[in-house]
């Protein structure tokens, strides 16, 4: 099935490429299992494009970040093609919502998603240091580590965000590749299970949890830079000296505040794509912080980011009738 979809993607991209500046998609990285973003400008590169559960990166950030590939599109510039999964499409909607780009600027290749693989999880079951090949057969991940062939149920090694995913199918798109996917979750309750689990613990345990998790943070800012909605980028207050929110120290308070800043600036804007967590080299569940805020937004203000290009993020507006606790 993947093979058919891939062929369809290649065909559609080939047809569209002459009208486009480039197509941003996923391709094979230098190792045998992970994908890397590729920027197809030439028909010769189309064969690099791939899709499926290994395509974990959210590519929408490349559309807007300085130095964007095409930071200030010239008059009459060709649109950019981009491959999006369900969650990625929400980021795209959010970017259009916030007027970082217009719908016409992008040609969207929508890819229904059945979940993406979290290689950290696979690494717990298989030694990933010398993988020879990794493929997907229906719902089984087959990893050959040059000694044994491991067969792992995909469902066991998906990224954390996938288990509560309500929007596996792109919300905006020009073309769809493959059959629509069935959502794993359909309600708030089943979308925020990890948040609820932590919330069920006593306050002190929660503090302990975050203290020990955030202690590992090396302040490399991968989570920030991977986030498609962290649009301030080089002007981020985390690095600014005036005003000086943070010093260069690496105590836990500094790390706490850094993650507070990241989360609060995404409150009501985060689409839960999980890029921050995926990018973290220290395996910190950074998306969980934002998930809590997303849950608050949903429960209290009935808002989920990245669903509607016309909607205004809830913290950028108000309602005189809002009530207090």
């Amino acid at each position, binding site marked *: 099935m993947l093979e058919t979809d891939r062929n369809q993607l290649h065909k559609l991209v080939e047809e569209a490429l002459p009208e486009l500046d480039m197509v941003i998609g996923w391709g094979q990285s230098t*190792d045998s299992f992970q994908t*890397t973003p*590729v*920027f197809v400008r030439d028909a010769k590169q189309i064969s690099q494009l791939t899709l499926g559960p290994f395509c974990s990166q959210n590519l929408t950030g490349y559309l807007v970040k300085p130095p964007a590939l095409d930071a200030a599109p010239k008059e009459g510039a060709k649109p950019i093609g981009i491959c999006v999964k369900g969650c990625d499409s929400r980021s795209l909607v959010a970017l259009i919502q916030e007027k970082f780009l217009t719908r016409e600027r992008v040609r969207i290749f929508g890819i229904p998603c059945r979940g993406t693989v979290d290689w950290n999880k696979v690494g717990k079951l298989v030694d990933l*240091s010398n993988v020879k090949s990794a493929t997907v057969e229906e719902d089984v991940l087959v990893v050959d580590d040059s000694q044994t062939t491991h067969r792992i149920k995909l469902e066991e090694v998906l990224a954390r965000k996938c288990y509560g995913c309500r929007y596996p199918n792109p919300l905006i798109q020009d073309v769809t590749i493959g059959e629509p996917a069935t959502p794993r979750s359909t309600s708030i309750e089943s979308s925020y299970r990890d948040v609820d689990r932590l919330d069920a613990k006593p306050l002190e345990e929660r503090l302990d949890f975050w203290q020990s998790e955030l202690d590992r943070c090396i302040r490399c*800012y991968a989570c*920030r830079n991977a986030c498609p909605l962290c649009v301030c980028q080089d002007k981020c207050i985390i690095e600014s000296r005036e005003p000086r929110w943070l010093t260069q120290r690496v105590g836990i308070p500094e790390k706490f505040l850094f993650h507070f800043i990241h989360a609060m600036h995404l409150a009501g804007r985060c689409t839960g794509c999980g890029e921050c967590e995926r990018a973290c*080299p*220290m395996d910190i569940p950074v998306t969980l912080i934002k998930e809590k805020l997303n849950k608050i937004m949903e429960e209290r203000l009935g808002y989920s980011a990245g669903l509607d290009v016309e909607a205004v993020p809830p913290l950028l507006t108000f309602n005189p009738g809002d009530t207090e606790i």
Partner: protein
Amino acid sequence: MAVKIFIATDQLDSVLEKLATKIDLWIPALLKEDKSGPTGFIPYEPGKSPVFERQTTLPTKKLLLPQVETLLRFEYKKDPEGGSTSSIVVDDARQVRPTLVFGARSCDVRALITMDRVFSQGPYVDPYYVERRKNTFFATLVCEQNDSKCFCSSVGGGPADMEGSHLKIVKLDEGYVVEALTKEAGSLLEGLGEAVDKAKDTKAGKIVKEASKRIVGDLDTKGCAEAFRNRFAQNDFWVQMVSQCLSCGVCTYVCPTCYCFTITDETQNLKGERMRSWDSCMFSQYTLEASGHNPRPTKLERYRNRVGHKFSYIPEKYEGILGCCGCGRCIRSCPVTIDIRQVVGNLKENSNEQ
């Protein structure tokens, strides 16, 4: 005859405990209770078991160049007469204790060969680094766990490379053979472990021999400095290589040889300190001038500088030594799987074509 001891696997903890009474002892360990989770070097505590099975996520760099350290402290003294600040006391805040890193890898130590040159080959000598370097001993594992991202042999090192190390650790099935490579390090081993019998010595010798024969990585770095210069102005090449870069600092923070730092002042009331902390050439602020001009305004220039620094500028400056130790950490940790081997490899390929 060099001091050589054997530590049985079940004796390791008690030996480390004894070692820790002689010297500050650091071991590679899990940073999260998860056997495949991130690892790094931490101060030894009884009961903490070292992770020798795989390379650590974070290198030993911070032991010689902490992520944050105090360069000096100052204090404004109020003038009792006028009430205005009149004098400042500046004090050099150094203090270094002898430290042993038990379970480093040859790539970690190889990085120091680069760092040593930068920090001590002048004309200015960095006293903070130099003093730490003098007081830090490395007990290095003969590496048998190289993976598909390692390329130490490509940059002048190798799995059994002991240059710069003070002790050599060979892991056998039943324990560890530890051999002192310097006299000072030998005194650390006094009274620890048991004698190495012939059989174990032979076994260890065989492991070392095999490891030193192994070629890890197939990157050819010959002539990369020149190839880089040729590629420098080819914008298209760099667009192709690093369009996916996120400009985050992961590669530089996990890199054992990335030493660039910034210096900042922090004060509270009348006291303060001048700190130096890791900086990253991947960040825009790193080179941003007060006027607003930035010589490296986009990720292309910044990534190019990283490659250039390691494979062209450092070799030019220091007799061909590369600024890369081949540990592969930047490849493993990169969120968008940029592979520096590919970039360096491509420097030479068809460099005259474009």
